[in-house]
């Protein structure tokens, strides 16, 4: 069934898409990080908030209903061997948690971006990923004039488990953004080994 393709599309059963999330407060640089690493201009997709989204299964009155949408920005990175990595910025508004569950399903892990001037903005994200058991790291985005707090101070403030990486970054810089993602994936590998020592032999 495979046909010849001109692009590095996933082929055969090895076709694999993986997902990484970028979370954090409003304006912390989520979309900037996505842009920095994406091979395409970040795309935006929307999901409509419907009764389906909130767990109701009644489509009878939908046509006459109004709803709203939640926007997500995402980027795409095609890796060798057909792997496609999607990097999703999570919706910023708290009322869109329903979307987070879908985003987190099957995700490898998450980057929680922090602006130390508004540290509390990242609390909900940290709580969410801790509750969900999804591996995450903290990226302390260095805004101009914000480099006043060390990684250790942020770790203390967030009361993080010592194994969770906290790294400084400048998400406008591609190399820095790449390092953030690499740090996350390395952390994911370590997390898997801790949870299941045989995990990486599969």
């Amino acid at each position, binding site marked *: 069934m495979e046909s010849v393709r001109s692009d590095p599309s996933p082929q055969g059963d090895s076709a694999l898409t993986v*997902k990484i999330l970028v979370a954090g407060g409003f304006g912390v640089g989520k979309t900037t990080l996505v842009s920095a690493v994406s091979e395409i201009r970040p795309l935006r997709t929307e999901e409509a908030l419907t009764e389906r989204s909130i*767990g109701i299964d009644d489509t009878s009155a939908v046509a006459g209903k109004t709803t709203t949408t*939640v926007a997500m920005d995402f980027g795409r990175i095609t890796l060798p061997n057909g792997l496609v990595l999607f990097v999703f910025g999570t919706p910023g508004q708290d*009322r869109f948690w329903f979307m987070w569950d879908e985003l987190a399903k099957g995700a490898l892990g998450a980057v929680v971006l922090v602006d130390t001037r508004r540290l509390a903005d990242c609390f909900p994200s940290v709580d969410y990923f801790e509750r969900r058991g999804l591996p995450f790291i903290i990226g302390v985005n260095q805004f101009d004039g914000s480099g006043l707090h060390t990684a250790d101070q942020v770790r203390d403030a967030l009361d993080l488990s010592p194994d969770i990486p906290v790294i400084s970054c400048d998400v406008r810089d591609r190399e820095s953004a790449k390092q953030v993602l690499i740090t996350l994936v390395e952390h994911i590998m370590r997390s898997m080994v801790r949870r299941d020592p045989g995990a990486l032999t599969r």
Partner: protein
Amino acid sequence: MAVPEQPPGPGADGPVDDAFADEGERSAAALDADEAAASGAAAEPGGTSGPPGPPPAPSQGGEGWYDEAAGPVVRPYALTGGRTQYDGHDLDMVALIETADEPEDPGHVHGLHRGGREAALDPEHEMILSLCRTPLSVVEIASDLELPLGVVRVLLGDLLDRSLVRVRRPAPVAQFPGERVLKEVIDGIRAL
């Protein structure tokens, strides 16, 4: 019924679900007031003991769900005839969709596989078929068509029914990625 009086947060979908589950009879009236319900049970904790009240003003409970940041209020499911979900396929947002091999006859009449009930494909269906000649994820299709994910899922369901597209689900390894996959991800990012 105890509805936690807290703003929507992690797990807030739970209270919302409960609120509805406990109010099975609420239907038409509640649907009119669904803005209130959707903003989280916290916005209307007393909604169970009396007739549903009017939607709370945006200022109540800290925030309304339909403020400017929420974007325009739309009726996206008009395209799908009001259908909001497709039974039979749970399409992951990063599942890759691929147009099935074209039949010989380009004028092939689609849609006769289900008792001839469906008419010809809508333009949106055709656009998806065109886009997915190269495998494309569900979110990318939604982004390209500028349609909500849910709408695209319904449209894809139509096409799946007619075997016009195939799904390549994200491999199960996405949940248990092996070392090889993770190393490939790292190497791939490094090489960017």
